[in-house]
């Protein structure tokens, strides 16, 4: 069992709301979000890191792959202010490919 804190990483409009919800480990950045994410991952203080969908789409594929195989910390992309998330569709497509039918369709 590993205990850790929650961090938010994103642009200021993304992080502010979470700060209101009580998260104080919010990292706001203008540039170099990827670098920040790696720092957060390596610090081992955090067990959950929320990142904005925008940052997620900008990540290097190698880092993305690493994240998707990592059990700890848990890194989740949340929708940006622009709204729609690609992540949900992503999973749906994966399910469709693996199981052979679209679960959302029923």
């Amino acid at each position, binding site marked *: 069992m590993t205990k*850790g*804190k929650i961090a938010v990483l994103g642009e200021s409009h993304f992080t502010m*709301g979470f700060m209101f919800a*009580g*998260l104080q480990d919010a990292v706001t950045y203008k540039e170099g979000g990827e670098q920040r994410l790696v720092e957060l991952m390596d610090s081992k203080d955090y067990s959950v890191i*929320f990142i904005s969908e925008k940052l997620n789409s900008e990540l290097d594929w190698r880092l993305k792959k690493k994240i998707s195989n990592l059990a700890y910390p848990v890194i989740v992309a949340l929708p940006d202010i622009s709204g729609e998330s690609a992540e949900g569709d992503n999973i749906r497509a994966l399910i469709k490919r693996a*199981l052979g039918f679209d679960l959302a369709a029923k």
Partner: protein
Amino acid sequence: MADQPNPTRMELLKLKDRIALARKGHKLLKQKRDALILEFFKILKKSKDIRSELNAKMKGAYASLAVAKAYHSSFELEALSLASARNMDVDVQVKNVMGVKIPNLTVSMEKREYPNKGYSISGTTAMLEATIEEYEGVLDMALSLAESEIAMKRLITEIEKTKRRVNSLEFIMIPRLQDEMKVIAFKLDELERDSFVSLKVIKRKLEKDKAEKAKGAEA
């Protein structure tokens, strides 16, 4: 077929072993796949549509934050957001399902009631309060999403991989090995018949020679 195997008895035995092994692996992988799918549906039931719900909720939260921004200056908001800290810890337990590592989150969060929320009712507007409440909801949801979505993603990737392996064993590996075995068995039989016939021929020839010799001796 890629390459012709040597038609020897050794090769035949080897192939037999390989087929047995492939069958065993196939059976195990099939079981693994079924177990993974079972686990996947368990999680799916729990977390259905959580993503789209969260999307909708976050949209609302963004909107109310924007409204709050209209009422307060952004400096003010920043200062207020810094004041609304609360303790929260997340325990991550890693569950291992058939080699797939799934995080299990236990969140211990401080419950906040009004006077400890970091803002004063007189100094702020109701918009801010609504925003904070919305974001608290978003946070709870995002945490449950974090757990289930990652689990789902990993499971589904693993299911796909396993499925592919099962199919490649079932439809490519095993039939190919069986074909090879058939070819070898056929060739071995052929060789056997061949040598049998040539033995017969030799024997007949020898007998003929013998008979001729005997005739010559008589004459």
